[in-house]
């Protein structure tokens, strides 16, 4: 699913050179549920963003489902994100003036799925996350747990094989966090690969494997 070879990421701020990732090599199989842990500033988000094609590495090679992602341009990366990857963020990142329904539908608008198939898919996802009655509400009218469920439904819109979650339970109480993990386990059961950054060992225990990062290296 994911093959990374000596991936590095360097930030340059004037004179200062900051190596956020140092020659990371990584292999992840399909349908794995992996958590990434490590102290603050160790490079977890940076790694996740590169895996998610939101950011490009400074060096190294990265194959996503046997496809070399390193040389792709912005629009090609957009297509990869749109088709293959679903994102779940700590702060949900829903569009504030779009309803639950519209938020879930959005990723499908960028690849031209027909209106009928979009409606069917949104309905399916609303049922899966249990928000059918909330489909016409805006994010501000939903609880944190509900918002995160909208975000998960949205991440699944184009049926991606890879789910990337950066501290998905960070803004939720522990009970709601468990509910979200329940959903993740279900997603893994559907054969999806899940990478999740977390600080919480209990949350991490839902995954099969943990990658520990320290100072931009895997330990």
């Amino acid at each position, binding site marked *: 699913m994911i093959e990374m070879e000596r991936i590095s990421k360097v930030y340059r701020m004037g004179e200062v050179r900051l190596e956020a990732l140092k020659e990371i090599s990584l292999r992840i199989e399909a349908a794995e549920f992996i958590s990434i842990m490590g102290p603050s500033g160790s490079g977890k988000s940076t790694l996740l*963003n590169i895996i*998610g094609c*939101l*950011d490009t590495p400074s060096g190294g090679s990265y194959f996503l489902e046997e496809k070399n992602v390193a040389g792709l341009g*912005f*629009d090609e990366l*957009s*297509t990869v*994100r*749109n*088709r293959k990857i679903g*994102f779940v*963020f700590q702060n949900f*990142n*829903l*569009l*504030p*003036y*779009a309803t639950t329904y*519209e938020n879930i539908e*959005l*990723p499908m*608008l*960028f*690849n*031209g799925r027909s*209106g009928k198939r*979009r409606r069917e898919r949104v309905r399916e996802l609303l049922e899966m996350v249990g928000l059918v009655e909330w489909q016409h509400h805006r994010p501000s009218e939903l609880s944190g747990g509900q918002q995160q469920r909208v975000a998960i439904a*949205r991440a699944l819109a*184009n049926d991606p094989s890879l789910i990337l979650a950066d501290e998905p339970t960070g803004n939720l109480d522990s009970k709601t966090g468990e509910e979200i993990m329940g959903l993740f386990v279900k997603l893994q059961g559907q054969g999806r690969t899940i990478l999740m950054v977390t600080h919480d060992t209990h949350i991490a225990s839902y995954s099969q494997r943990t990658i520990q990062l320290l100072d931009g290296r895997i330990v």
Partner: protein
Amino acid sequence: MRAQLFRYFAKELRKRKKKTALVTFAITWGTLSILLLMSFGRGLSNSFRISFKGLGDNLIMVYRGQTSKDYHGLPKGRRIMIYPRDIALLSALIPEIGLVSPESNDYFMITAAGRETNRNVCGVGPAFGVMRSMIAESGGRFINEEDERTARRVAFIGWNMAENLFPGENPVGRTIVISRVPFTVIGVMKKKLQNSSYQGFDADHAYIPHSTFSRIHTQLYIDRIHVQPKRREDNQLVERRIREILGRKYRFDPEDDYALGIWNTIEQAEEAEKGFRGVEIFLAIIGGLTLLIGAVGVTNLMYALVKERTREIGIKMALGARRRHIILQFLLETVFIFSKGMFWGAAVAYAIVRLTRLVPISYELSGIQTYLLRPIFSLDILVIFLAILGTLVFLSGIFPAVRASRLNPVEALRYE
């Protein structure tokens, strides 16, 4: 690009209406004020032009005068009179003259249909009507050659006098009595703007053939000669020739500006025309500067609109938006906001201009309202304005849009 995406953009725009209201209002306001500035400015200079033609803008008037210089032993201070036969002399010796007419006038008691009024009566030649842009209301006519040659007792009267003597009636064919002599009214003057005059405005006068005037009045000289050159450019030449010819005949120095009073409206109109153009250019410059300042302001507002959506751009990029999706959305929004603002601005400006023009103005008073209340909303102003604004739309929209599409998704997502 797919229709569904356009529909989605439209939906977003609708929901963000409140946020874009300020920009829309700014554009409406800018459009409105510039169009009004141009319309009222154009109307102002246009009214000036029209009222200049009210007296005639292609006319040289020659008056009696008094010498101010000694000449060949003759003392200064001699009165110089002009006589009907001088007209024939001038037309014979100055081929550049097109039309010429004498004018004498005095106050007479005029009675008609039991009403009585003391008014200025002018004896004029047939060419006078054309020279002074006096047009008869339909059903009437001005004095003609035959009237002059046979000294007919006919009168052409101003609209004010017509209203006073024959309120609500058609005076043509009716009789008025001037100094106990009956005259037939042959025409009533159409209303016109007039901003300069001598001895009152044309609207209050009665005009009769000059030959007839000589019979009811005792004076032998004439008060004025009206001369219109064939070509406007010759006005100074004609003026000089008149001074030379009459100077030789009545023995005064052609360089003596007081021997004859000469009022050259052509020269005056040319000066005034420069003034009108100056006003229009001035207004255009003000308008242009206002537009520029407005454009800077609007571009700023557009940047702000894009900036506050940075995070949202990041979200869309994460979900698979391409660069052109981002650019297109912002460009469409800019075009929409501008179209809406410009439409309302132009509509309101048009309505104000139309309503202002409905306000009746008095031709007699010739006051400030005649200049302020006749704005002109012309197509060329609108087209030029839209062309300039269209360019500004493109510029103020394209820069923020392109900048948005160049954002790094990670940075955009982290934006607070």
